């Protein structure tokens, strides 16, 4: 029998593949300029959303009719709106709302979608058929219409907005995770732990979930962009956060009436939505390429 003799000094530290793959991921991600820009923008948004509201000196909801519809100036960087509220302050305060909606709705959709996807892919059969047909039905609706229907049933509030956008994210996660689960499930190590008598829960959470994580992470990032866009759309239609919440979509909607005289009312919230969505999209794309170098090009 050939045994490897541990020559002194050759005993290497074991290389954790997880840590190693993160290092690789970071290396590849760094090469992608667009993704780096997207990532930095997200970081800026995050910081601004969390500490921004404490730094602004003005009240986002206090009307000051005397200074309404003023253009950008040193005092009001993005100008004032039709009630004389500082638009810059409102946008900073709205950042938190936008991110709350984006993160929570995607988290909600992600958790439900991943669960349904894994169950569907792992058990297969009738359960799979039923779950996936329901997902198909959800997908058949245009996203905004589905969210619209949910909000109009539940009523317009921030929580309901999150639920609506969350539900509309479920099928995307379910489908992707089901596909990955199908391929991982066939690997021999799953059979090996099954032969050892592992419960389904152990197999799903310890052996399948960690191995289908990378498409989930990419989808989370890309989905946040879509969720924010949908949420803004709903608020624009008056079905999101009730006024005077400084939600960007709602600001856009309010400013619409003054678009001719004071275009900055819609320009800045609109620009912010574009930047936010763009940042998450290019970062998500970069992440996908970095996680799967084979799919490049």
């Amino acid at each position, binding site marked *: 029998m050939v045994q490897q003799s541990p020559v002194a000094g050759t005993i290497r530290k*074991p*290389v954790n*593949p997880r840590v190693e793959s993160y290092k690789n991921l970071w290396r590849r991600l760094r090469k992608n300029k667009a993704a780096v820009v997207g990532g930095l923008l997200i970081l800026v948004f995050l910081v601004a959303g969390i500490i921004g509201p404490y730094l602004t000196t003005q009240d986002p909801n206090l009307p000051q009719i005397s200074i309404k519809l003023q253009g950008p100036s040193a005092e009001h960087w993005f100008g004032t709106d039709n009630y004389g509220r500082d638009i810059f302050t409102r946008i900073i305060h709205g950042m938190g709302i936008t991110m709350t909606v984006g993160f929570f709705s995607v988290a909600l959709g992600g958790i439900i979608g991943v669960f349904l996807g894994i169950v569907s892919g792992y058990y297969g059969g009738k359960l799979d*058929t039923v779950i996936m047909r329901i997902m198909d039905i959800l997908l058949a609706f245009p996203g905004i219409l589905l969210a619209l229907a949910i909000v109009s049933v539940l009523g317009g509030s921030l929580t309901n907005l999150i639920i609506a956008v969350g539900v509309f994210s479920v099928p995307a996660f379910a489908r992707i995770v089901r596909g990955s689960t199908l391929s991982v499930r066939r*690997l021999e*190590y799953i059979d090996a732990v099954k*032969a050892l008598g592992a419960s389904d829960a152990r197999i799903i959470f310890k052996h399948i979930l960690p*191995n289908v994580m990378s498409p989930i992470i990419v989808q989370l990032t890309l989905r946040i962009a879509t969720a924010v866009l949908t949420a803004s759309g709903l608020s624009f239609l008056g079905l999101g956060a009730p006024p005077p919440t400084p939600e960007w979509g709602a600001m856009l909607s309010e400013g619409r009436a003054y678009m001719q005289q004071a275009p900055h009312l819609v320009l800045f919230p609109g620009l912010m939505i574009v930047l936010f969505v763009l940042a998450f999209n290019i970062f998500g794309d970069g992440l996908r390429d970095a996680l799967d170098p084979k799919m490049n090009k």
Partner: protein
Amino acid sequence: MVKKELLKVTGLKQYFPIKGGLMGRTVNHVKAVDDISFTIHEGETVSIVGESGCGKSTTGRAILRLEEPTEGSVVFNGDELTTLSKREMRTHRKDLQIIFQDPYASINPRQTVADVLDEAMTIQKILPAKQRRKRIIELLETVGLNEYQADRYPHEFSGGQRQRIGIARALSVDPKLIICDEAVSALDVSIQAQVLNLLEELQEEFNLTYLFISHDLGVVRHISDRVIVMYLGKIVEIGDKYSIFENAKHPYTKALLSAIPVPDPKAVKKHIVLKGDVPSPIDPPAGCRFHTRCPFAQDKCKVDVPELIVHEGMREGHQAACHFVEEIENGTLQAAEFEETFFG
């Protein structure tokens, strides 16, 4: 000498449904394993050989209920396995383990060797958590690995070493029967020999019983006590190693054996080349499944399914499923369109 029956498989069938149409109705079945029966005694090594797709791996998986068998009974150590609930089956899994073919796919890439073995023992509640580490080291040493490798990840090992990890995992729960599903097929020949020797050593040390699934007749000849030859989901011949390798009766077994390469360039050897391909297991031929390729096929073979029985001139326990064993042996039945190639 009466040996104890450890595993008794009776009338095992494994059909996989083929779904089709809009509503996903079952249109047909792949009859991967079709009514096979055999027994394995304690401490012996029984091999299943056959071409790819003949159902040998499926048989192993059906015994372990990795795929629920369609029909038939699997009695292990006196307990019927096929009727157990999933939960009851889990506790029985301790006694039946499996070693897989692909050492690169059979270990979770995110677990260290110690994690893999620890998990196996956790699932079967083998030892209290504190004593497991010691046992893990013991297991690694048993399979020829070292203590310092315990905290490494699978990608840091070679194929042969990974196969040893797979063996250690199977051993960790003290099984009685290990199914080796093409356990050495993916390894280099020199490594194959090492792993085979290891398996033999372990068999002696732990009184293991092996069901060895392989397409490699050389390996099978080396390790087996008894051999089962399968063709298209059915057993065509079964017997001890001597009977199968020196005194094969079934035309298929003969053809299979003639394909073993002989490491002697001067040896003159009759090579039986079978015509055509293995028919589809979706619609297997009626009668004897081998009749479409058998050089001795008669009209009877197309209608009647031959039974697996002891024919004249065969030892006890040696059975073949062919209508014309005697006729072929005494030469009254000549091979039609027998393709013979001679080397030498």
